[in-house]
Protein backbone atom coordinates (compact mmCIF):
# COMPACT_ATOMS: atom_id res chain seq x y z
CA UNK A 1 0.00 0.00 0.00
CA UNK A 2 1.32 3.44 -0.88
CA UNK A 3 1.89 5.87 1.97
CA UNK A 4 -0.38 8.88 2.25
CA UNK A 5 1.65 12.09 2.12
CA UNK A 6 -1.28 14.38 2.82
CA UNK A 7 -4.59 13.52 4.36
CA UNK A 8 -7.68 15.56 5.31
CA UNK A 9 -10.05 13.79 7.69
CA UNK A 10 -13.50 15.36 7.97
CA UNK A 11 -12.09 18.87 8.05
CA UNK A 12 -14.46 21.77 8.67
CA UNK A 13 -13.40 25.39 8.91
CA UNK A 14 -15.70 28.07 10.29
CA UNK A 15 -14.62 31.70 10.21
CA UNK A 16 -16.00 34.04 12.81
CA UNK A 17 -16.24 37.60 11.54
CA UNK A 18 -15.10 39.03 14.87
CA UNK A 19 -15.85 42.67 14.11
CA UNK A 20 -19.45 41.96 13.14
CA UNK A 21 -20.74 40.15 16.17
CA UNK A 22 -21.76 36.56 15.71
CA UNK A 23 -21.71 36.15 11.91
CA UNK A 24 -20.21 32.80 11.08
CA UNK A 25 -19.05 31.66 7.69
CA UNK A 26 -18.47 27.99 7.03
CA UNK A 27 -15.70 27.97 4.43
CA UNK A 28 -15.32 24.22 4.01
CA UNK A 29 -17.42 21.46 5.46
CA UNK A 30 -16.46 17.87 6.14
CA UNK A 31 -13.66 17.70 3.59
CA UNK A 32 -11.86 14.37 3.38
CA UNK A 33 -9.27 13.31 0.84
CA UNK A 34 -5.90 11.67 0.60
CA UNK A 35 -2.90 12.38 -1.56
CA UNK A 36 -0.46 9.51 -1.91
CA UNK A 37 3.31 10.00 -1.92
CA UNK A 38 4.43 11.27 -5.31
CA UNK A 39 0.91 12.00 -6.45
CA UNK A 40 -0.27 15.32 -7.91
CA UNK A 41 -3.85 16.23 -7.05
CA UNK A 42 -5.74 19.31 -8.17
CA UNK A 43 -8.66 20.94 -6.44
CA UNK A 44 -11.04 22.77 -8.69
CA UNK A 45 -14.22 24.59 -7.82
CA UNK A 46 -16.25 27.77 -8.14
CA UNK A 47 -14.64 30.93 -6.76
CA UNK A 48 -15.13 31.41 -3.04
CA UNK A 49 -15.64 27.70 -2.42
CA UNK A 50 -12.84 27.44 0.10
CA UNK A 51 -10.06 26.06 -2.12
CA UNK A 52 -7.51 28.42 -0.61
CA UNK A 53 -8.77 27.60 2.88
CA UNK A 54 -7.78 23.97 2.26
CA UNK A 55 -4.29 25.10 1.43
CA UNK A 56 -3.96 27.35 4.48
CA UNK A 57 -5.12 24.53 6.71
CA UNK A 58 -2.75 22.07 5.04
CA UNK A 59 0.22 24.37 5.59
CA UNK A 60 -0.62 24.62 9.29
CA UNK A 61 -1.05 28.40 9.19
CA UNK A 62 -4.69 28.20 10.26
CA UNK A 63 -6.18 25.60 12.58
CA UNK A 64 -9.13 23.51 11.44
CA UNK A 65 -12.35 24.04 13.41
CA UNK A 66 -13.02 20.31 13.46
CA UNK A 67 -11.32 17.35 11.83
CA UNK A 68 -7.66 16.51 11.39
CA UNK A 69 -4.96 16.98 8.80
CA UNK A 70 -1.96 14.70 8.47
CA UNK A 71 1.27 15.12 6.56
CA UNK A 72 3.40 11.99 6.31
CA UNK A 73 1.27 10.49 9.03
CA UNK A 74 2.01 13.37 11.37
CA UNK A 75 -0.85 15.57 12.58
CA UNK A 76 -0.55 19.20 11.43
CA UNK A 77 -1.14 21.76 14.15
CA UNK A 78 1.39 24.40 13.09
CA UNK A 79 3.65 25.01 10.06
CA UNK A 80 6.02 22.12 9.45
CA UNK A 81 9.28 22.31 7.59
CA UNK A 82 8.62 19.68 4.92
CA UNK A 83 5.51 21.40 3.57
CA UNK A 84 6.07 24.40 1.32
CA UNK A 85 3.55 26.62 -0.32
CA UNK A 86 3.44 28.83 -3.36
CA UNK A 87 0.85 31.45 -4.23
CA UNK A 88 -0.33 33.38 -7.24
CA UNK A 89 1.83 36.29 -6.06
CA UNK A 90 5.55 35.56 -6.26
CA UNK A 91 6.16 37.21 -2.85
CA UNK A 92 9.84 37.76 -3.65
CA UNK A 93 11.53 40.13 -1.22
CA UNK A 94 12.75 43.17 -3.16
CA UNK A 95 15.84 43.66 -0.98
CA UNK A 96 17.17 40.17 -1.64
CA UNK A 97 18.81 38.93 -4.80
CA UNK A 98 17.18 36.01 -6.56
CA UNK A 99 19.64 33.62 -4.93
CA UNK A 100 18.99 35.10 -1.48
CA UNK A 101 15.26 34.87 -2.08
CA UNK A 102 15.59 31.22 -2.97
CA UNK A 103 17.55 30.67 0.23
CA UNK A 104 14.90 32.32 2.43
CA UNK A 105 13.34 29.07 3.59
CA UNK A 106 16.73 27.42 4.21
CA UNK A 107 17.85 30.46 6.13
CA UNK A 108 14.75 30.41 8.34
CA UNK A 109 15.30 26.72 9.00
CA UNK A 110 19.00 27.44 9.65
CA UNK A 111 20.06 25.01 6.94
CA UNK A 112 22.31 27.30 4.91
CA UNK A 113 25.60 25.57 4.17
CA UNK A 114 28.12 25.76 1.35
CA UNK A 115 26.39 22.72 -0.07
CA UNK A 116 22.92 24.25 0.17
CA UNK A 117 24.18 27.40 -1.55
CA UNK A 118 25.46 25.34 -4.42
CA UNK A 119 22.14 23.52 -4.55
CA UNK A 120 20.22 26.81 -4.68
CA UNK A 121 22.24 27.91 -7.69
CA UNK A 122 21.76 24.52 -9.33
CA UNK A 123 18.02 24.84 -8.76
CA UNK A 124 18.00 28.31 -10.32
CA UNK A 125 19.84 26.98 -13.34
CA UNK A 126 17.26 24.25 -13.66
CA UNK A 127 14.55 26.91 -13.54
CA UNK A 128 16.33 28.75 -16.39
CA UNK A 129 17.42 31.57 -14.08
CA UNK A 130 21.14 30.76 -14.09
CA UNK A 131 21.99 34.20 -15.47
CA UNK A 132 19.92 36.04 -12.86
CA UNK A 133 21.33 34.59 -9.66
CA UNK A 134 22.50 37.98 -8.43
CA UNK A 135 19.71 40.07 -9.95
CA UNK A 136 17.02 41.73 -7.90
CA UNK A 137 13.35 40.79 -8.38
CA UNK A 138 12.44 44.10 -10.07
CA UNK A 139 14.84 43.24 -12.88
CA UNK A 140 12.89 40.09 -13.80
CA UNK A 141 9.72 39.55 -15.81
CA UNK A 142 6.57 38.13 -14.22
CA UNK A 143 7.23 34.64 -15.52
CA UNK A 144 10.83 34.68 -14.30
CA UNK A 145 9.74 35.91 -10.90
CA UNK A 146 7.28 33.05 -10.61
CA UNK A 147 10.05 30.61 -11.60
CA UNK A 148 12.16 32.05 -8.80
CA UNK A 149 9.23 31.55 -6.43
CA UNK A 150 9.08 27.92 -7.56
CA UNK A 151 12.80 27.53 -6.95
CA UNK A 152 12.35 29.03 -3.46
CA UNK A 153 9.57 26.51 -2.78
CA UNK A 154 11.71 23.58 -3.94
CA UNK A 155 14.88 24.76 -2.18
CA UNK A 156 13.71 23.56 1.24
CA UNK A 157 13.27 20.11 -0.33
CA UNK A 158 9.68 19.75 0.89
CA UNK A 159 7.90 16.43 0.69
CA UNK A 160 4.57 18.14 0.04
CA UNK A 161 3.97 21.19 -2.15
CA UNK A 162 0.84 23.24 -1.70
CA UNK A 163 0.17 25.53 -4.65
CA UNK A 164 -2.59 28.11 -4.86
CA UNK A 165 -3.16 29.15 -8.46
CA UNK A 166 0.57 29.69 -8.95
CA UNK A 167 0.34 30.51 -12.66
CA UNK A 168 -2.97 32.37 -12.86
CA UNK A 169 -1.35 35.80 -13.07
CA UNK A 170 0.80 34.87 -16.08
CA UNK A 171 0.07 35.20 -19.78
CA UNK A 172 -1.08 32.08 -21.62
CA UNK A 173 2.26 31.15 -23.20
CA UNK A 174 4.39 31.73 -20.11
CA UNK A 175 1.86 29.73 -18.18
CA UNK A 176 2.25 26.70 -20.43
CA UNK A 177 6.04 26.85 -20.22
CA UNK A 178 5.93 27.01 -16.44
CA UNK A 179 3.39 24.19 -16.25
CA UNK A 180 5.75 22.11 -18.35
CA UNK A 181 8.66 22.87 -15.99
CA UNK A 182 6.56 22.10 -12.95
CA UNK A 183 5.22 18.85 -14.39
CA UNK A 184 8.73 17.72 -15.23
CA UNK A 185 10.19 18.75 -11.86
CA UNK A 186 7.42 17.06 -9.89
CA UNK A 187 7.86 13.85 -11.86
CA UNK A 188 11.67 13.91 -11.57
CA UNK A 189 11.77 14.59 -7.85
CA UNK A 190 8.75 12.43 -7.03
CA UNK A 191 7.22 15.17 -4.91
CA UNK A 192 3.65 15.20 -3.71
CA UNK A 193 1.59 18.22 -4.68
CA UNK A 194 -1.81 19.68 -3.97
CA UNK A 195 -2.58 22.12 -6.72
CA UNK A 196 -5.41 24.62 -6.54
CA UNK A 197 -6.58 26.13 -9.79
CA UNK A 198 -9.63 27.40 -11.63
CA UNK A 199 -8.15 26.48 -15.00
CA UNK A 200 -9.76 23.17 -16.01
CA UNK A 201 -7.17 22.25 -18.63
CA UNK A 202 -4.34 23.10 -16.26
CA UNK A 203 -5.82 20.75 -13.66
CA UNK A 204 -6.13 17.96 -16.20
CA UNK A 205 -2.70 18.50 -17.74
CA UNK A 206 -0.84 18.45 -14.43
CA UNK A 207 -2.62 16.02 -12.16
CA UNK A 208 -3.17 12.36 -11.45
CA UNK A 209 -6.54 13.18 -9.91
CA UNK A 210 -8.86 16.18 -9.85
CA UNK A 211 -11.07 16.87 -6.84
CA UNK A 212 -14.15 18.98 -7.54
CA UNK A 213 -15.49 21.22 -4.80
CA UNK A 214 -19.03 22.54 -4.41
CA UNK A 215 -20.18 26.09 -3.71
CA UNK A 216 -19.65 27.35 -0.17
CA UNK A 217 -19.65 25.69 2.24
CA UNK A 218 -17.16 23.82 0.11
CA UNK A 219 -17.08 20.09 0.15
CA UNK A 220 -15.67 17.53 -2.26
CA UNK A 221 -18.42 16.41 -4.61
CA UNK A 222 -16.46 14.39 -7.13
CA UNK A 223 -13.10 12.82 -7.75
CA UNK A 224 -11.91 12.36 -11.29
CA UNK A 225 -8.94 10.16 -12.05
CA UNK A 226 -7.06 11.52 -15.05
CA UNK A 227 -6.18 8.51 -17.15
CA UNK A 228 -3.90 10.17 -19.65
CA UNK A 229 -0.24 9.11 -19.92
CA UNK A 230 2.79 11.45 -19.67
CA UNK A 231 2.08 13.31 -16.45
CA UNK A 232 5.66 14.60 -16.72
CA UNK A 233 4.83 16.29 -20.01
CA UNK A 234 1.81 18.62 -19.58
CA UNK A 235 2.33 20.17 -23.05
CA UNK A 236 1.80 16.83 -24.71
CA UNK A 237 -0.98 15.92 -22.31
CA UNK A 238 -2.91 19.08 -23.24
CA UNK A 239 -3.15 17.82 -26.79
CA UNK A 240 -4.38 14.37 -25.88
CA UNK A 241 -7.74 13.45 -27.37
CA UNK A 242 -9.26 12.60 -24.00
CA UNK A 243 -8.77 16.11 -22.53
CA UNK A 244 -12.01 17.33 -24.13
CA UNK A 245 -14.03 14.63 -22.39
CA UNK A 246 -12.55 15.51 -18.99
CA UNK A 247 -13.19 19.21 -19.53
CA UNK A 248 -16.80 18.48 -20.44
CA UNK A 249 -17.24 16.37 -17.31
CA UNK A 250 -15.76 19.12 -15.13
CA UNK A 251 -17.89 21.81 -16.78
CA UNK A 252 -20.92 19.73 -16.09
CA UNK A 253 -19.98 19.20 -12.42
CA UNK A 254 -19.32 22.90 -11.93
CA UNK A 255 -22.55 23.89 -13.74
CA UNK A 256 -20.56 26.23 -15.96
CA UNK A 257 -22.95 25.81 -18.91
CA UNK A 258 -25.99 26.62 -16.80
CA UNK A 259 -24.38 29.75 -15.40
CA UNK A 260 -23.78 31.01 -18.94
CA UNK A 261 -27.40 30.42 -19.95
CA UNK A 262 -28.92 31.96 -16.86
Amino acid at each position, binding site marked *: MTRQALEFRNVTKIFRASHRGSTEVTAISDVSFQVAEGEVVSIIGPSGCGKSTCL*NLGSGLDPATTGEIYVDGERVTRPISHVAFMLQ*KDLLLPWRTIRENVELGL*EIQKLVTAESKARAIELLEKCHLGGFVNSYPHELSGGMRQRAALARTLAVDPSVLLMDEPFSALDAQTKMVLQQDLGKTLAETGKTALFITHDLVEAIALSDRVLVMSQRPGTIIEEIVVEIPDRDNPMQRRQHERVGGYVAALMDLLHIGEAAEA
Partner: protein
Amino acid sequence: MDSLSIESSTQRMLAGSVLLFCAFLALWEWGPTLFGIPAFIIPPASKVWSEFIYMSGNENLLFHTAITAGQVVAGLVLGVLLGMVVGFILGMSPTAEFLLSPYILALQIAPKVAFAPLFIIWFGYTVYPKILVAVLIVFFPVMINVLGAVRSIDPDITRLARAFTASRLQVFWKIEFPASLPPFFAGLRIAATLAVIGVVVGELVGGNTGLGYLLSFGEGAGNTAMVFVAIILLTLIGIVLYGLIVLAERRVLHYMPARVRADG
Protein backbone atom coordinates in the same frame (compact mmCIF):
# COMPACT_ATOMS: atom_id res chain seq x y z
CA MET B 1 22.53 60.82 -27.84
CA ASP B 2 26.12 59.56 -27.56
CA SER B 3 28.12 59.59 -24.35
CA LEU B 4 30.34 62.44 -25.55
CA SER B 5 27.50 64.89 -25.89
CA ILE B 6 26.05 63.82 -22.51
CA GLU B 7 29.46 64.54 -21.02
CA SER B 8 29.68 67.94 -22.61
CA SER B 9 26.14 68.83 -21.56
CA THR B 10 26.91 67.97 -17.91
CA GLN B 11 30.07 70.06 -18.23
CA ARG B 12 28.04 72.98 -19.50
CA MET B 13 25.56 72.59 -16.65
CA LEU B 14 28.42 72.50 -14.13
CA ALA B 15 29.95 75.64 -15.62
CA GLY B 16 26.56 77.36 -15.47
CA SER B 17 26.14 76.42 -11.84
CA VAL B 18 29.59 77.82 -10.92
CA LEU B 19 28.83 80.99 -12.88
CA LEU B 20 25.51 81.44 -11.05
CA PHE B 21 27.26 81.07 -7.68
CA CYS B 22 29.83 83.75 -8.65
CA ALA B 23 27.00 86.05 -9.73
CA PHE B 24 25.25 85.44 -6.41
CA LEU B 25 28.43 86.31 -4.46
CA ALA B 26 28.96 89.43 -6.55
CA LEU B 27 25.38 90.57 -5.98
CA TRP B 28 25.78 89.97 -2.25
CA GLU B 29 29.07 91.90 -2.17
CA TRP B 30 28.13 94.95 -4.22
CA GLY B 31 24.33 94.80 -4.33
CA PRO B 32 23.65 96.38 -0.91
CA THR B 33 25.82 99.47 -1.67
CA LEU B 34 24.32 99.70 -5.17
CA PHE B 35 20.75 99.70 -3.85
CA GLY B 36 21.60 101.81 -0.78
CA ILE B 37 20.96 99.05 1.77
CA PRO B 38 22.95 99.72 4.96
CA ALA B 39 25.41 97.07 6.23
CA PHE B 40 23.42 96.48 9.44
CA ILE B 41 20.53 95.19 7.27
CA ILE B 42 22.54 93.12 4.76
CA PRO B 43 26.29 93.07 5.41
CA PRO B 44 28.28 92.41 2.20
CA ALA B 45 29.88 88.99 1.67
CA SER B 46 33.38 90.21 2.52
CA LYS B 47 32.18 91.58 5.88
CA VAL B 48 30.50 88.28 6.75
CA TRP B 49 33.72 86.48 5.76
CA SER B 50 35.92 88.72 7.93
CA GLU B 51 33.43 88.32 10.81
CA PHE B 52 33.73 84.56 10.35
CA ILE B 53 37.54 84.79 10.56
CA TYR B 54 37.31 87.06 13.62
CA MET B 55 34.79 84.83 15.37
CA SER B 56 36.92 81.75 14.66
CA GLY B 57 39.82 83.39 16.49
CA ASN B 58 38.08 85.29 19.28
CA GLU B 59 34.57 83.95 19.86
CA ASN B 60 35.30 80.24 20.02
CA LEU B 61 33.20 79.71 16.89
CA LEU B 62 34.43 76.15 16.42
CA PHE B 63 33.34 75.26 19.95
CA HIS B 64 29.85 76.73 19.45
CA THR B 65 29.46 74.97 16.10
CA ALA B 66 30.62 71.66 17.59
CA ILE B 67 28.18 72.01 20.50
CA THR B 68 25.26 72.63 18.14
CA ALA B 69 26.29 69.85 15.76
CA GLY B 70 26.75 67.45 18.69
CA GLN B 71 23.32 68.24 20.06
CA VAL B 72 21.75 67.82 16.63
CA VAL B 73 23.39 64.40 16.15
CA ALA B 74 22.49 63.27 19.70
CA GLY B 75 18.87 64.40 19.26
CA LEU B 76 18.66 62.78 15.85
CA VAL B 77 20.08 59.44 16.98
CA LEU B 78 17.90 59.24 20.09
CA GLY B 79 14.79 60.46 18.27
CA VAL B 80 15.32 58.00 15.43
CA LEU B 81 15.83 55.05 17.81
CA LEU B 82 12.74 56.00 19.80
CA GLY B 83 10.70 56.57 16.65
CA MET B 84 11.70 53.20 15.23
CA VAL B 85 10.98 51.26 18.42
CA VAL B 86 7.58 52.92 18.94
CA GLY B 87 6.76 52.65 15.22
CA PHE B 88 7.48 48.90 15.23
CA ILE B 89 5.53 48.30 18.45
CA LEU B 90 2.48 50.23 17.24
CA GLY B 91 2.75 48.64 13.80
CA MET B 92 2.71 45.14 15.25
CA SER B 93 0.12 45.68 17.95
CA PRO B 94 -3.20 47.22 16.88
CA THR B 95 -4.20 47.27 20.57
CA ALA B 96 -1.23 49.44 21.48
CA GLU B 97 -2.00 51.76 18.59
CA PHE B 98 -5.64 52.03 19.59
CA LEU B 99 -4.74 52.89 23.18
CA LEU B 100 -1.94 55.31 22.44
CA SER B 101 -3.03 56.99 19.23
CA PRO B 102 -4.99 59.88 20.86
CA TYR B 103 -1.93 60.89 22.89
CA ILE B 104 0.40 60.50 19.97
CA LEU B 105 -1.90 62.55 17.76
CA ALA B 106 -2.12 65.31 20.40
CA LEU B 107 1.66 65.36 20.81
CA GLN B 108 2.09 65.37 17.04
CA ILE B 109 -0.19 68.38 16.60
CA ALA B 110 1.40 70.33 19.48
CA PRO B 111 4.19 72.61 18.18
CA LYS B 112 7.23 70.80 19.51
CA VAL B 113 9.41 73.90 19.79
CA ALA B 114 6.91 75.29 22.34
CA PHE B 115 8.27 72.67 24.73
CA ALA B 116 11.71 74.32 24.77
CA PRO B 117 10.99 76.71 27.70
CA LEU B 118 9.45 73.85 29.67
CA PHE B 119 12.50 71.66 29.16
CA ILE B 120 14.76 74.53 30.24
CA ILE B 121 12.73 74.84 33.46
CA TRP B 122 13.24 71.12 34.01
CA PHE B 123 16.89 70.72 33.05
CA GLY B 124 18.38 74.23 33.28
CA TYR B 125 20.86 75.77 30.84
CA THR B 126 22.42 72.46 29.87
CA VAL B 127 22.59 70.49 26.60
CA TYR B 128 19.64 68.31 27.65
CA PRO B 129 16.70 70.65 26.85
CA LYS B 130 18.07 71.22 23.34
CA ILE B 131 18.60 67.54 22.68
CA LEU B 132 15.14 66.81 24.04
CA VAL B 133 13.43 69.28 21.69
CA ALA B 134 15.29 67.66 18.77
CA VAL B 135 14.28 64.17 19.96
CA LEU B 136 10.65 65.23 20.11
CA ILE B 137 10.70 66.75 16.63
CA VAL B 138 12.62 63.86 15.04
CA PHE B 139 10.45 61.20 16.66
CA PHE B 140 7.28 61.78 14.62
CA PRO B 141 8.30 61.53 10.99
CA VAL B 142 10.33 58.40 11.78
CA MET B 143 7.62 56.79 13.90
CA ILE B 144 4.82 57.50 11.41
CA ASN B 145 6.83 56.15 8.46
CA VAL B 146 7.94 52.98 10.25
CA LEU B 147 4.39 52.38 11.50
CA GLY B 148 3.00 52.82 7.98
CA ALA B 149 5.64 50.51 6.53
CA VAL B 150 4.94 47.71 9.00
CA ARG B 151 1.20 48.06 8.34
CA SER B 152 1.55 47.91 4.59
CA ILE B 153 3.56 44.65 4.47
CA ASP B 154 1.63 42.10 2.41
CA PRO B 155 0.30 39.63 5.01
CA ASP B 156 0.97 36.82 2.54
CA ILE B 157 4.71 37.52 2.80
CA THR B 158 4.52 37.05 6.55
CA ARG B 159 2.46 33.90 6.04
CA LEU B 160 5.06 32.59 3.61
CA ALA B 161 7.79 33.10 6.21
CA ARG B 162 5.65 31.44 8.85
CA ALA B 163 4.95 28.51 6.55
CA PHE B 164 8.75 28.11 6.37
CA THR B 165 8.47 27.77 10.18
CA ALA B 166 9.84 31.24 10.92
CA SER B 167 9.71 32.41 14.55
CA ARG B 168 8.28 35.82 15.48
CA LEU B 169 11.82 37.18 15.77
CA GLN B 170 12.79 35.81 12.33
CA VAL B 171 9.70 37.41 10.79
CA PHE B 172 10.85 40.71 12.27
CA TRP B 173 14.48 40.55 11.14
CA LYS B 174 13.90 38.96 7.75
CA ILE B 175 10.67 40.67 6.70
CA GLU B 176 9.42 43.56 8.82
CA PHE B 177 12.70 45.31 9.50
CA PRO B 178 14.05 45.35 5.91
CA ALA B 179 10.59 46.19 4.55
CA SER B 180 10.44 49.27 6.78
CA LEU B 181 13.77 50.71 5.62
CA PRO B 182 12.70 52.65 2.48
CA PRO B 183 9.96 54.63 4.30
CA PHE B 184 12.28 54.91 7.29
CA PHE B 185 14.90 56.71 5.21
CA ALA B 186 12.25 59.03 3.77
CA GLY B 187 11.32 59.93 7.36
CA LEU B 188 14.98 60.27 8.34
CA ARG B 189 15.63 62.87 5.64
CA ILE B 190 12.81 65.02 7.00
CA ALA B 191 13.95 64.36 10.56
CA ALA B 192 17.53 65.48 9.90
CA THR B 193 16.51 68.98 8.83
CA LEU B 194 13.99 69.23 11.65
CA ALA B 195 16.61 68.24 14.24
CA VAL B 196 18.59 71.41 13.46
CA ILE B 197 15.48 73.53 14.05
CA GLY B 198 14.82 71.82 17.38
CA VAL B 199 18.33 72.46 18.70
CA VAL B 200 18.44 76.10 17.53
CA VAL B 201 15.13 76.91 19.19
CA GLY B 202 16.43 75.34 22.40
CA GLU B 203 19.59 77.46 22.21
CA LEU B 204 17.65 80.65 21.41
CA VAL B 205 15.45 80.17 24.46
CA GLY B 206 18.25 79.77 26.95
CA GLY B 207 21.91 79.05 27.51
CA ASN B 208 25.22 80.49 26.49
CA THR B 209 26.53 77.93 24.04
CA GLY B 210 25.85 76.96 20.46
CA LEU B 211 25.09 78.76 17.23
CA GLY B 212 21.57 79.58 18.47
CA TYR B 213 23.14 81.48 21.32
CA LEU B 214 25.44 83.35 18.88
CA LEU B 215 22.32 84.22 16.84
CA SER B 216 20.63 85.94 19.75
CA PHE B 217 23.95 87.42 20.97
CA GLY B 218 24.60 88.92 17.52
CA GLU B 219 21.06 90.27 17.40
CA GLY B 220 21.48 91.91 20.82
CA ALA B 221 24.82 93.45 19.81
CA GLY B 222 23.44 94.69 16.49
CA ASN B 223 26.07 92.54 14.78
CA THR B 224 24.23 91.47 11.62
CA ALA B 225 27.34 89.80 10.17
CA MET B 226 27.49 87.52 13.21
CA VAL B 227 23.85 86.52 12.64
CA PHE B 228 24.68 85.73 9.03
CA VAL B 229 27.67 83.60 10.05
CA ALA B 230 25.50 81.62 12.49
CA ILE B 231 22.74 81.07 9.89
CA ILE B 232 25.26 79.88 7.28
CA LEU B 233 26.92 77.47 9.70
CA LEU B 234 23.54 76.08 10.81
CA THR B 235 22.65 75.50 7.18
CA LEU B 236 25.99 73.76 6.63
CA ILE B 237 25.36 71.42 9.57
CA GLY B 238 21.99 70.53 8.01
CA ILE B 239 23.51 69.99 4.57
CA VAL B 240 26.30 67.73 5.86
CA LEU B 241 23.82 65.67 7.86
CA TYR B 242 21.43 65.37 4.94
CA GLY B 243 24.28 64.36 2.64
CA LEU B 244 25.43 61.66 5.04
CA ILE B 245 21.90 60.28 5.24
CA VAL B 246 21.54 60.23 1.44
CA LEU B 247 24.88 58.36 1.24
CA ALA B 248 23.77 55.84 3.86
CA GLU B 249 20.44 55.43 2.08
CA ARG B 250 22.15 54.70 -1.22
CA ARG B 251 24.24 52.01 0.42
CA VAL B 252 21.40 50.40 2.34
CA LEU B 253 18.72 50.68 -0.35
CA HIS B 254 21.09 49.84 -3.22
CA TYR B 255 18.67 47.15 -4.39
CA MET B 256 16.04 49.66 -5.41
CA PRO B 257 15.92 50.97 -8.96
CA ALA B 258 17.43 54.48 -8.94
CA ARG B 259 14.27 56.15 -10.21
CA VAL B 260 12.21 54.72 -7.33
CA ARG B 261 14.69 55.88 -4.70
CA ALA B 262 13.92 59.56 -4.13
CA ASP B 263 17.40 60.89 -4.67
CA GLY B 264 16.30 64.46 -3.90
